């Protein structure tokens, strides 16, 4: 009955080898994903809905087309459009409230299209009318110092993107949150 004993050894190996490989690889994969700005928890908000993530309510308010405000400014690259994205953030807990005033509590707002291409915000200040809205996920007091955002109060963030004209129609918003890694996806 040697074959029966060998079978058990074989099955044991079949279970142990993948487990050993996973134990070796998975921690590195997690570190790589954190380093590469991927991985972590995810929350998705469907059209017109809000997502709850890290004690914050995230809502996509609008994606509209913008135009350069100054006719003498540098022209846009050919076949591109300006996308103005407005996102509302509302802290629901005390901890989330403090996140808006913390130096490490940041977010990166990007847009992606149906093909999976992503774009970061433009640094040009002339692509959208002056709005007075926050440019990112931090809150400032009257002295322009970082301050917690009171629970329940909404912070409206506006970011501007230059994207290929063919991508505009399928744009969606992706917010990468730090320091605890995670991603909020907001669908238009």
């Amino acid at each position, binding site marked *: 009955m040697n074959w029966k004993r060998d079978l058990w050894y074989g099955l044991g190996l079949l279970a142990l080898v993948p487990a050993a490989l996973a134990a070796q690889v998975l921690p590195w994969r997690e570190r790589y994903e954190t380093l590469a700005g991927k991985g972590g928890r995810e929350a998705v908000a469907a059209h017109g809905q809000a997502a709850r993530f890290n004690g914050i309510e995230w809502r996509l308010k609008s994606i509209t087309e913008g135009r350069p405000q100054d006719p003498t400014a*540098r022209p846009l*690259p*050919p076949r591109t459009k300006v996308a103005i994205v407005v996102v509302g953030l509302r802290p629901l807990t005390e901890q989330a409230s403090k996140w808006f005033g913390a130096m490490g509590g940041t977010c990166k707002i990007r847009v992606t299209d149906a*093909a999976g*291409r*992503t*774009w*970061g915000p433009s640094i040009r200040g002339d692509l959208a009318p002056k709005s007075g809205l926050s440019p990112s996920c931090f809150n400032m007091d009257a002295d322009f110092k970082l301050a917690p955002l009171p629970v329940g109060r909404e912070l409206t963030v506006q970011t501007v993107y230059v*994207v*290929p004209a063919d991508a505009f129609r399928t744009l969606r918003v992706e917010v990468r949150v730090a320091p605890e890694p995670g991603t909020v996806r907001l669908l238009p």
Partner: protein
Amino acid sequence: MRRAITGVLTAALLLAGIVAVRRATPDADAKYAPIASVGEMGEQVNTAAFQLRVDRVQLARSVRLEDAYGLLGQPKSTAGVWVVVWATVAATTEEVTVQGARLRTADGAEYLASSVSGTLDKTALAPGMPSYGPILFEVPPGRLAGAALEVTVHSVKSLDHLGPAAAVDLRLSGPYTKALIEQAPASLTVGPVRDL
């Protein structure tokens, strides 16, 4: 006696095997080298992060850079020769800058692109928005023949481990390179990066 000879032969074979395996094993540089897509001048080279096409190569003794508004910079001389590589680059899915542009000469030496600003390798590239422009190198004229262009997204090589890369043969044969160097203009005006 026969057993002793067999033993010695087996040991010698094993030793030879060990030496062969050790020699065939790639070193750390080779193991973690960027994953290069290879191409020719005028051909589109696709990598995971960007697409590159080298359009032409110019040589000059000094260069003057022209900015997007048509303003000319001061002439820049070199102890060697300026190699101006004109290329088109497009990001695939995420924004990149092809900061790791190098000329690798036939003897294995590598020349990182010049630190001159406003060139293609210093330009942020977004998906779906290709750019055309120059990449500048300073190279001793005697080492230029057989040089190839290698492009990655980081200027620090260790950050490009197993990352995307493009390698393009610039068709710089000995006689052709010699003729290019002889005909290199004393001064060349180099235009700005353009959005396509």
